[in-house]
């Protein structure tokens, strides 16, 4: 075993050295500047894939591979998430035992607001995601919270995403040091290598979007949450953002954290903010 971990450390440092050389100019200033980060992030992908239309990035792997795009468009004629969408609409209209509905918990009755989630809650001093807000709405009305990785939550977020389709992602970072810290924490999580595979989210979604890991084509990180929740053929079922984070972790052999832990909320905040301006395309269908 000694040899194996030594091998790992060797490859780790080699990768670091190689990457330090190739990464663009390294600025010393450690001040958190989300606006500059978002601009750099988007330009990285616009320059790396000049032929991909900017709003097409939200279609994940289908913006990277023509053959898969054709298969996707065929499926979109009658997409497999139709059932989740209808179920979500029905749940949204069904009052809780106390007579209230989800519409009472959300601005504008929960219609057409998905593009503003997640937001930074200054009272709580933390990021609040759509999935978290839905469960808090349930608990505030005396109902049991839903699992973050199962169908009910996916149906609710599918309906809310559908009502925002086409609206540009619009995430705000208030002038509050805790919000900047949450953004930075999400960025750190996104670039940190984990699991025995020693991958970070960036290893796949920044270094090699468009390439294959076995049958699947990797999606670009830009706009990667815009199509959420997604019906995945792999799961033959719906998946929320929480389910996607948890399964990505276990694929790199990292033990997943609890859904909606701070790291997940912050990385969702970071990924959504840098996708500002790109359209919401959820619910989506993916391999």
């Amino acid at each position: 075993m000694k040899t194996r971990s030594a091998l790992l450390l060797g490859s780790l440092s080699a990768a670091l050295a190689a990457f330090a050389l190739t990464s663009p100019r390294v600025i010393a200033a450690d001040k958190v500047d989300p606006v500059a980060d978002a601009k750099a992030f988007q330009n990285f992908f616009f320059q790396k894939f000049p032929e991909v239309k900017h709003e097409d990035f939200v279609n994940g792997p289908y913006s990277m591979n023509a053959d898969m795009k054709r298969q996707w468009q065929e499926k979109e004629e009658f997409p497999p998430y139709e059932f989740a969408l209808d179920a979500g609409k029905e749940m949204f209209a069904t009052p809780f035992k106390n007579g209230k509905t989800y519409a009472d918990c959300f601005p504008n009755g929960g219609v057409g607001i998905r593009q503003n989630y997640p937001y930074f809650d200054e009272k709580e001093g933390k990021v609040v995601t759509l999935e978290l807000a839905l469960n808090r709405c349930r608990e505030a009305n005396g109902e049991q919270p839903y699992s973050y990785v199962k169908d009910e939550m996916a149906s609710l977020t599918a309906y809310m995403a559908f009502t925002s389709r086409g609206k540009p992602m619009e995430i705000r970072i208030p002038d509050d040091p805790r919000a900047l810290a949450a953004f930075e924490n999400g960025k750190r999580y996104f670039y940190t290598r984990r699991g025995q595979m020693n991958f970070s989210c960036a290893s796949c979604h920044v270094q090699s979007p468009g390439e294959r890991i076995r049958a699947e084509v990797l999606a670009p990180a830009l706009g990667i949450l815009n199509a959420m929740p997604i019906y995945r053929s792999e799961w033959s079922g719906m998946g929320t953002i929480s389910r996607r984070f948890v399964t990505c972790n276990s694929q790199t052999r990292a033990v997943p954290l609890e859904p909606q832990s701070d790291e997940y909320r912050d990385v969702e905040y970071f990924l959504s903010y840098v996708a500002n301006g790109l359209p919401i395309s959820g619910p989506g269908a993916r391999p």
Partner: protein
Amino acid sequence: MASSIRVRATSNGDITEVQALIQHPMDTGLVKDPKGEVIPAHYIQQLTFECNGKDVFVADWGTAVSKDPYVKFSFKGAKKGDDLKISWTDNKGASDTTTAKIA
């Protein structure tokens, strides 16, 4: 509960294009559940599309048809407003039917 059959029938000229998506597990009977027990076969065997009293299209399905099955075909001889009756039966004898107006 809404019917398990979602159907879209649109006619232009004499040709009516029909798309159907059906909510069904389509279990092959060859897959094990997490506890290791075999999930018994449960799949739609026959799906019939009937219009103006005639079976225009009949599908015989095996275990290799995807979960939440989808099918698309077109046929002549019907016009806007005609009724299209869709019904399926599966290997457990369950069935469902729905009627859609051709748009």
